[in-house]
């Protein structure tokens, strides 16, 4: 376990957004966080990324309490990508990706050849070499999301936490992002924690699924195990059935829409 949340509780005023949340992550695995709107996915990700200090419990990264990590050393170990992040409109793809080197370069040093090499690599892995000089505003939604992922990659952090990276994208771009994430995990051994709305995408990409409901973790296990519990149907209040394909592919939920 490189990253581990134990009994984490987060309150916003009187509202308890997350309670007794415990979940650990091993190197190189992809864990998908699913759950209805307001179930605490985002809060859990913020706590795991060290952006929200839990009111109860603790988050431990590499054996050290999250609170004791300095911002810069944390950024070299873990990168977080919020949902639909804001970017200054005069920024180019390459400039955004270069910001990912901040933790390595710091305030006073200048870019070294290794930093340039990493930026190049991040652009290449996300297929953005040809778009490097483009302004972020000129990109399609999928390309822009890839640019943000490239910036996170440039951190060389080993742990990637993504908050609904496929929202607002068309299906083609959604699949493109999912394939990119899965390739990173396979080829680079990056640990990925991803909050995602599309259940079937979660099942397809994740090694493990964590299901949240009203701030509580109600299930944690493989996609196949989840399909057998009936929890998806009750948590999301939908009817449907899991279709098991032959071979190694994850089960697929076919939702029934009454009309």
């Amino acid at each position: 376990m490189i990253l581990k949340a134990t009994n984490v509780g987060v309150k916003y005023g009187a509202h308890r957004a997350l309670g007794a949340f415990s979940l650990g992550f091993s190197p190189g695995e992809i864990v998908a966080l699913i759950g209805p709107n307001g179930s605490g996915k985002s809060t859990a990700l913020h706590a795991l990324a060290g952006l929200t200090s839990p009111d109860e419990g603790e988050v431990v990264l590499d054996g050290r309490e999250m609170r004791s990590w300095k911002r810069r050393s944390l950024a070299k170990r873990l990168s977080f990508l919020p949902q639909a992040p804001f970017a200054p409109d005069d920024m180019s793809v390459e400039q955004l990706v270069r910001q990912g080197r901040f933790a390595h370069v710091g305030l006073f040093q200048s870019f070294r050849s290794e930093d340039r090499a990493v930026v190049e690599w991040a652009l290449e892995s996300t297929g953005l070499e040809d778009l490097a000089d483009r302004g972020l505003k000129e990109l399609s939604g999928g390309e822009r999301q890839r640019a943000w992922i490239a910036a996170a990659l440039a951190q060389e952090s080993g742990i990637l936490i993504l908050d609904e990276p496929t929202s607002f994208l068309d299906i083609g771009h959604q699949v493109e992002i999912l394939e990119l994430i899965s390739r990173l995990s396979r080829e680079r051994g990056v640990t990925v924690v991803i909050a995602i709305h599309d259940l079937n995408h979660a099942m397809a990409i994740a090694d493990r699924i964590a299901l949240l409901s009203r701030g509580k973790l109600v299930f944690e296990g493989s996609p196949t195990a989840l399909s057998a519990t009936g929890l998806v149907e009750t948590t999301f209040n939908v009817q449907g059935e899991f279709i098991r394909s032959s071979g190694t592919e994850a089960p697929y939920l076919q939702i029934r829409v009454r009309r």
Partner: protein
Amino acid sequence: MRITTSRSTRTAGALVVPLMLSAVLLVAAIFLGVVDLPAKDILAVLIGGGSDDADLIIGTIRIPRIVTGMLAGAHFAVAGLLLQAITRNPLADPTILGISQGATLTVAIFLLFTVYGASADAHTLYSLPLRWLPLVACVGGMSTGFLVFSLAMRNRLSVLRLTLSGIAIGATLHALAMGLVAGWGSARFEIVMQWLSGSLYARSWEHVIFLLPFTVAAAIALPLLHRSIDMLRFEEDVARSFGLSYRLHFSLVLFTACGLAASAVGTVGPLIFVGLVVPHLAHFLAGRHFGMVMPLTVVLGASLVTGADLVGRLLGQAEEIPIGVITALAGAPALLILLRRRS
């Protein structure tokens, strides 16, 4: 490779033109004025000779006035640039933190007390303790900035709350100042109004010396902060996960902006449009060359105020038109054009 060359030529061009413009303005501002001095007399003063009259006009009146204007212009423009970056609000300028309004109120209170406190017949402009105005206004502006900042920092730092409390507090202080001025009226009303519209009238080396420490401090701080300023243009979560200690750096940059703006408001009055327009113009000229934005902002800020003052002096002759009026008249259309082109 060819692309890089053409890009760097463009980069150089983007700075050279404003620099030349600023040099031309500087020369024009020295040579042109209400008192018509022959060019050779002025040249004589500049190389260290010349008649006493010319020396008085150039060395004691025109040059300190120009230098004050250039410094104050650069202060306003850089403060605006910093505030627009960290609040992610393209309409931010020193008024958004209540700096100008706080300064106005303290100036009004100061004049009220010193006038009534000193002597009852102190009606004329010159007998008023004008030399203390910069300090008083600067302190007022800084304190308002800090008040707004501390309100925004309660619980969790919020940029939106910073902007909203700045606007609310600014409006309140402005209303108080106006009420005060309207209530006591007469001759002092004019001083406040004159100060409010922004003027370089009778600015001397004293004002330059007042501004310089702030200029030097910012000139040291800003190169050290340049990377955090880039980072602060992102939302808090993004900047923090890139590795920035957001609160610390936000405070440092805000503090710098506050010092620059308050010292400038103190010496020349609130020149609203400079802080608003110049950063947009600099962004427009720099394109994607972030490194150019700051130098361009400094040069353009200094030139705009020098130019506006020159125009005001020449158009108005002895009854000069306040710079604030010129910058607002010229700045507002410029801003509208820039915003149109950007969208």
